[in-house]
């Protein structure tokens, strides 16, 4: 007697489920447009952002999308050219008519995209803009939590770490690339050093793309500093360490601002090298919302794709954070209205893999969550501040 009833109920439930699934799949997708430097000199890092975006969109769709609608990510190749990024963002808004924008990589392209977003009153969440003072647009939101004045706060964090370490330095050699987002940080570091009565024994600058680091290594060796601040971007750190090795010199303590993380950590000469990070694959970072699962999936995919460094660090974490911020804005306002999303983000904090972020500071930047990490036993370990170190990790000096 009961069997037919159960069958009817099961059939009804299955039909409803199928209908709801059909309805979801037929729902108009939310289209999010962005560009990435899929080719050109920035593509090595941009491929990280592409993978992260794919993972996030896939995860979001598995959760049922946003507002009950699936996500569709329209990503175009800006060829590492900020001028092309500007054109493509125009296309995304006017021709592709995307619902929302996501930022590109890197600073130059972000500034281009910001100009377009401002013209069309669109919210722009961006991954790794290195110069907060350039982010003038009211509805831009940074996913890289480096604070509103990183040129002061980041060097202070570093010199705090060194002061608390086994060999607080007294003399510093400052060498730096003239790449814009590097140079202003180095200048800030020099100011911080003055205030801390640290003696600057050498200051050198080179143009982005410098090939020969031999004479720079020679001059550092000659200056005999206790500590070397290297305003490095990309491969600069590797090239400088290679040049130092050739003259049998190892800096006592050394810091690299934005090195290519994989290649640097794999160099034996990079032992004890310091750098900054907002995320590493270790507690307490992996306890942040979504972090554990993200790290696991990213590692699998990055390894499969043959990335030289499949670990989640600043770039991947900032990229994932950007998607978390945009989702928070959409779900918080239950809509796709850019002005409402912008206002909501300014008024609320967002849980991300980096921790809780706020956007009510200078140019919508919140707290400086940059941490100090060090190459120990061939891998990056967060060593400062103490509350984010794992186990008894601490800064080491030779």
């Amino acid at each position, binding site marked *: 007697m009961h069997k037919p009833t159960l069958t009817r109920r099961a059939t009804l439930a299955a039909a409803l489920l199928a209908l709801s699934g059909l309805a979801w799949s037929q729902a108009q997708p939310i289209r999010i447009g962005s560009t990435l430097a899929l*080719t*050109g*000199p920035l*593509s*090595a890092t941009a*491929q990280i952002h592409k993978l992260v975006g794919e993972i996030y969109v896939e995860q979001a769709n598995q959760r049922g999308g946003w507002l009950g609608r699936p996500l569709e990510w329209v990503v175009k190749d800006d060829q*590492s050219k900020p001028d092309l990024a500007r054109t493509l963002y125009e296309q995304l808004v006017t021709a592709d008519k995307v619902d929302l924008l996501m930022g590109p990589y890197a600073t130059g392209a972000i500034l281009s995209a910001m100009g377009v977003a401002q013209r069309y009153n669109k919210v722009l969440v961006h991954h790794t803009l290195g110069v907060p003072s350039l982010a003038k647009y009211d509805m831009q939101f940074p996913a890289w939590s480096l604070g509103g004045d990183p040129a002061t706060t980041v060097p202070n964090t570093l010199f705090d770490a060194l002061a608390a370490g086994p060999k607080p330095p007294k003399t510093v050699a400052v060498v730096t690339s*003239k790449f814009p987002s590097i140079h202003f940080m180095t200048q800030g570091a020099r100011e911080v050093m003055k205030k801390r009565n640290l003696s600057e024994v050498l*200051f*050198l*600058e*080179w*143009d982005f*793309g*410098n*090939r*020969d680091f*031999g*004479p*720079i290594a*020679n*001059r550092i*060796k*000659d200056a005999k500093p206790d500590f070397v601040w290297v305003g490095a971007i*990309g*491969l600069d750190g*590797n*090239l400088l360490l*290679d*040049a130092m090795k*050739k*003259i*049998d010199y190892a800096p006592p303590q050394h810091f690299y601002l934005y090195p*290519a993380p*994989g*290649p640097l950590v794999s160099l034996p000469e990079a032992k004890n090298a310091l750098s900054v990070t907002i995320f590493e694959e270790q507690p307490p970072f992996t306890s942040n919302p979504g972090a554990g699962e993200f790290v696991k999936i990213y590692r699998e995919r990055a390894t499969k794709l*043959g*990335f*030289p460094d499949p670990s989640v660090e600043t770039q991947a974490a900032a990229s994932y954070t950007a998607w978390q911020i945009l989702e928070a804005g959409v779900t918080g306002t239950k809509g796709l209205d850019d002005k409402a999303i912008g206002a909501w983000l300014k008024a609320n904090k967002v849980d991300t893999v980096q921790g809780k972020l706020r956007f009510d500071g200078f140019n919508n930047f919140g707290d400086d969550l940059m941490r100090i990490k060090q190459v120990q036993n061939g891998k990056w370990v967060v060593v400062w501040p103490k509350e984010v170190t794992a186990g008894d990790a601490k800064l080491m000096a030779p």
Partner: protein
Amino acid sequence: MPGFSLPSASLLAQSILSGIFVGALYGLLGLGLSLSWGLLRFINLAHFAFAFLAAYLCWQMATLGADPLLTLAVLVPLFFAIGAGLHALMARFAVTPFNSLLITFGLTGIVEALIQSIWTADFRKLESSYAEQKFKIGVLYFPVPELITFAFAVGLSFAVWAVLRHTDLGKALRAAAEDAPIAAAFGVNQRLNGLLLAGFAAALASVAGVCLALSFTLAPSQIYAWVGVVFAAVMLGGLGRAFGPLLAGTLIGVSEAVTMAVTAPSWAPIVSFSLLILVLVLRPGRVG
């Protein structure tokens, strides 16, 4: 000048040595370009792309266990064939020198895209036993990869000089560059000689590529980082001259290194290009 300081003797000497080594690489990269430009009137921008393609192939073979220097046994004939093939195409369509610049610029972009699609845009560093080796004489360090580059640059420049100066082939090449119709009237087979020279120039690019792989970390976009300074070395050294690129490259390398040693490293490129402008102004006939 900003940051000017008197360097110590050891700093200056080591910097000059570093300049000589990097200058040798400028010269090695410039040698094939200079021969092709000066003797064939073929401005081959793709020379840099060939060098990087060879560097990546060297890296690939080395990761499979081959000695980086032994990869030359494969790379030299391979690039000889590529260079000769490219020249045959150019000759078939009677490409002018200016158009050759444009075509090979496009080819460079294609090779860069090819490298990126195979090896990705990530940095690649050749790990070899050579990288660990160096000699120390007094206070000066002589890294083995740089010594290898220097030896190749000097040896190949000398070999090219000897061939151009003392062989019938060299005389025929120089004659054809000087006055092609008259050379043809004397029975010079310009087509065959052109193929040989273009192949040889590309083979030189492969040698430079192996030297690049030994000393530098590779990335596809790095192709363009060498163009300006090597062009300067080629023009300063005089087109089609065997020792020209090496001498000019060394002059540029040393002047850059000394600039870096006594003042700001960011001044170094200004020195090399100022030298080029000076030569163009004072001795315009040297180029072309």
